[in-house]
């Protein structure tokens, strides 16, 4: 058995296109894990903007001496949306969302200009990627006016939040300020009660939001206004700028247990993606003793599906893929007399034209996120994956263990072990830059 130790650095360039599962597809076995090390980003700038659900991004990456430009577009295809007649109120509703992503990458600086397309084909070292996904899930519907509905709980927890924040602020204030703050708080509650009394259908939550939306405050003291802003979810600066949820911060155990009552089914998904890439291969033509270029198109097509659990802690995924790629021959050093005395002329390069390789792969993967309360709420995740390649009749076992967080505390690095039965190769090492996600 061969053993390999490696360090992987991979760049997330385009979200869903570069999940750990896809990173494996461009080469064979544990080589695939090592291959991601070659896609590291060492510099460049990124700019992107989002308009509604049409997202556009333009990105320039530099790796060593190579610079590439990427243009990416994503669309939401759920238009025009489905409306349902609710003459008979259902208790379960099903919603679906469809999305498309397209991106193109081309090298910069070769021949002095970008070259995505030649006249009749993709330019060398350029690629096109596309993806289509459909997510759907069921919702247990509870009317907004219901005592167990979302608004009732939110209103109750908003009041709990205001009371708690009020007491905290008063406790931290000077003796002289406390009396005024208490008076402001009393006036605020009276103002709120008057608003509620004036409308039979106005919810406490909406009444508070109405106050929160009034800037400058007309009838509300700055102190009360601050309290409301801290405790209304969804407003900039809400919950003291942390944007945490009321349930997380002030909910009871029952609130936390019931928070996903609406979530009837978890989330199902199905989709496909593909990549077309043009590559140039240089090799030695041994018959004419000269170097030749050989330009070919590589393909990848993949279909996938899976399910994300109700609590958002785990997902199952399966995929089928076809890959056509070209593998360069090993390098040789070839010499022959050049006709001038005893001098010889030597060429170094691939021994021949690259060999076409077709791969048919089926894979299944499980992803799970653990929250370690004993370590202060730190997270750890695993994503074991088994894939089988029909042509080589080889299986690849891959087990990434995520434990390294990025700046936003999302997991994006850790330790990885892979075993390739066809090559009898066991590989293990560290990786960074591959964010953990339960979504495909």
């Amino acid at each position, binding site marked *: 058995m061969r053993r390999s130790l490696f360090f992987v650095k991979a760049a997330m360039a385009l979200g869903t296109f570069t999940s750990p599962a896809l990173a494996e597809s461009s080469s064979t076995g544990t080589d695939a894990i090592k291959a991601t090390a070659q896609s590291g980003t060492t510099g460049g700038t990124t700019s992107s903007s989002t*308009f509604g659900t049409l997202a556009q991004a333009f990105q320039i990456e530099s790796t060593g001496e190579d610079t590439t430009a990427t243009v990416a577009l994503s669309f939401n295809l759920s238009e025009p949306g489905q409306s349902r007649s609710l003459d008979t109120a259902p208790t379960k509703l099903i919603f679906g969302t469809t999305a498309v992503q397209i991106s193109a990458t081309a090298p910069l600086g070769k021949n002095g200009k970008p070259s995505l397309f030649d006249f009749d084909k993709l330019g060398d070292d350029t690629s096109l990627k596309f993806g289509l996904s459909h997510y759907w899930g069921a919702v247990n519907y509870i009317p907004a006016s219901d005592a167990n509905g979302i608004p009732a709980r939110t209103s109750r927890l908003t009041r709990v939040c205001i009371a708690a924040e009020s007491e905290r602020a008063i406790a931290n204030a000077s003796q002289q300020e406390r009396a005024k703050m208490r008076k402001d708080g009393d006036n605020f509650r009276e103002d709120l009660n008057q608003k509620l009394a004036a409308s039979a259908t106005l919810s406490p939550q909406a009444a508070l939001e109405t106050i929160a939306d009034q800037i400058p405050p007309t009838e509300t003291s700055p102190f009360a206004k601050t309290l409301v802003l801290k405790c209304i979810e969804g407003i900039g600066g809400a919950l003291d700028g942390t*944007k945490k949820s009321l349930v997380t911060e002030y909910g009871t155990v029952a609130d936390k247990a019931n928070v996903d009552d609406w979530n009837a089914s978890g989330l199902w998904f199905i989709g496909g993606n593909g990549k077309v890439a043009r590559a140039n291969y240089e090799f030695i033509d041994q018959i004419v003793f000269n170097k030749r270029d050989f330009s070919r198109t590589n393909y990848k097509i993949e279909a996938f599906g899976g399910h994300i659990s109700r609590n958002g802690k785990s997902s199952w995924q399966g995929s089928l893929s076809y890959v056509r790629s070209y593998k360069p021959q090993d390098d040789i050093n070839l010499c022959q007399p050049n006709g001038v005395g005893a001098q010889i002329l030597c060429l170094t390069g691939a021994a021949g034209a690259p060999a076409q390789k077709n791969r048919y792969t089926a894979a299944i993967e499980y992803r799970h996120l653990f929250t370690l309360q004993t370590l202060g709420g730190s997270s750890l995740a695993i994503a074991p994956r088994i894939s089988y390649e029909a042509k080589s009749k080889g299986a690849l076992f891959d087990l990434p263990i995520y434990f390294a967080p990025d700046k936003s505390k999302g997991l994006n690095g850790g330790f990885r072990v892979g075993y390739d039965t066809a090559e009898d190769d066991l590989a293990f090492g560290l990786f960074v830059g591959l964010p953990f996600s339960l979504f495909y």
Partner: protein
Amino acid sequence: MPNITFTIGGEPVWKGAVIEDGHNMIETFDIPGASFTHGVPSDSLAWFTLYAKGPEGKEVTVEIKRGEFSLVRKRTYLFGSDLTVAKSIQFDPDKPEPTNSGAAT
């Protein structure tokens, strides 16, 4: 019946919505691309409930406007560790909130 425009932004992977008029459901929606407009009956407060899922730490935004320009509500929610957002927003289809709502950004 005023036309209300609902716009969902941010980075939700999946989303759906229910509109209620007082105590009754009006419609449910697979939320379309950028936004959608729906007539909401006058004379009563209405509810817009958003159900969404997305990556932890990412946001989903809701913007409710009367017609094209009058801002009624704008809210931003963060996907937590359960990847879910389920929020009900009450609004008055006849009366946009004060336009100087700097808090609602």
